[in-house]
């Protein structure tokens, strides 16, 4: 039977595409145009009291934070990080702390005084994120098939 249905033309939104917001610290994330994730560096001067948005990850990124003054400054993925010394977040130290944030994660901070925080954000390359997922999935599968899994894993490491 002949298909007489006419194809539906795709409809494009007239509204400009916006991201959730790869925001710079202190910048309002609303209405930020979509940007490509890139390495960026800031020195953040913290505000006193309250929970503040530090970073909104548009994609997979690695953030590096180092406290350059005496603090106390606490950071957390959760919004309930107040007060700084409550243990709800992690206290920043003069030695740098680095971790990966996945797409859509938000990083919040609270501070008891004006402090300097060195903030570096680096993108996790696309292929690297896939390989990370693949490797994690492979490890879980292989481990589930033990002892065959252990044999395969041994052979794989020997080959390398």
């Amino acid at each position: 039977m002949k298909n007489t249905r006419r194809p539906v033309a795709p409809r494009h939104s007239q509204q400009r595409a916006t991201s959730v917001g790869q925001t710079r610290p202190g910048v309002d994330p609303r209405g930020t145009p979509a940007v490509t994730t890139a390495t960026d560096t800031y020195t953040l001067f913290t505000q006193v009291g309250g929970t503040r948005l530090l970073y909104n990850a548009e994609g997979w990124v690695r953030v590096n934070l180092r406290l350059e003054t005496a603090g106390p400054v606490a950071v957390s993925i959760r919004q309930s990080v107040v007060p700084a010394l409550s243990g709800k977040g992690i206290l920043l130290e003069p030695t740098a702390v680095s971790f990966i944030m996945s797409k859509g994660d938000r990083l919040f901070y609270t501070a008891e005084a004006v402090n300097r925080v060195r903030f570096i954000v680096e993108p996790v390359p696309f292929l690297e994120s896939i390989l990370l997922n693949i490797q994690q999935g492979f490890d879980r599968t292989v481990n589930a098939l033990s002892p065959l899994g252990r044999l395969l894993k041994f052979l794989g490491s020997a080959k390398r």
Partner: protein
Amino acid sequence: MTFPQTSSIQSVLNGQEYWRLFTELESSGDIYETEQSGRAFVLGPQSDVAQIGLTYFDLQSPGSANCITVSVDKPMIGRLDAIGTEIYQSGDRARILISTNDLLPPIGFTPPSFTAGGLQVVKPSIDLLQYLSQEPTFIAPRANRNHMFENLPAGAAGSNWFLVPFYGRRFAEITAKILASAATAAGPPLTVEVYGLNFSNIIADPVVPDSGHQELLLSSVVIPAPALAAGPGVSGSIVLTNRAFDYLEVKLTYASAFPPTSFNLHVVTSDKI
């Protein structure tokens, strides 16, 4: 007294590794503040006072405030927090308060030996270093303090008193020198006496300022006047070691009118012998 005082927040914004409070004190009750936490608090190199008290927020202490003393030999190494979001029980924000634990000469103070004549009191300075980024690897001792009173005019017979800070010091050298005279005859001798002063909080009479405790350290040292046509004037020095006083009082007395001349007084104080 520096007013308004320097801001520790500005030091953070300027990227400095420490904040320094260096100012002349007016009274023992002067209080300064810092709104920054510090990783170490150290007596600065130009501090005249030997003990500085830091008041900080502590929920376990009465009034939510606790005190610690930073002294010449005992810096505070460790993080001390200024909690901008908390308040003391007095209702003030929980910043770190800075004051001196040493007693200063009261306003209008005159030493017990004072009768009539000139009186110069050197006001002490407070010098505190607050390290913001990391603890210091080396803590320098206080620098020597040189008090120079030069070309002091000599008029009619009388005395002049000079009071200089001596908090926490262990060594002093007092040198007096009569400058060359232009007269035709040798002048009278110059007598130097040195006293040690310790102040107290005893208020026996609220009208009369407490004169503190005074102890004569050295017997009179007579510095003879230079002879006519002599070159540089005669000088003499007194060395003082291992005594603990708040202030040193140097009294210069000349028995009769000097010829047109003048004299110098030089007082060096040090933490080291």
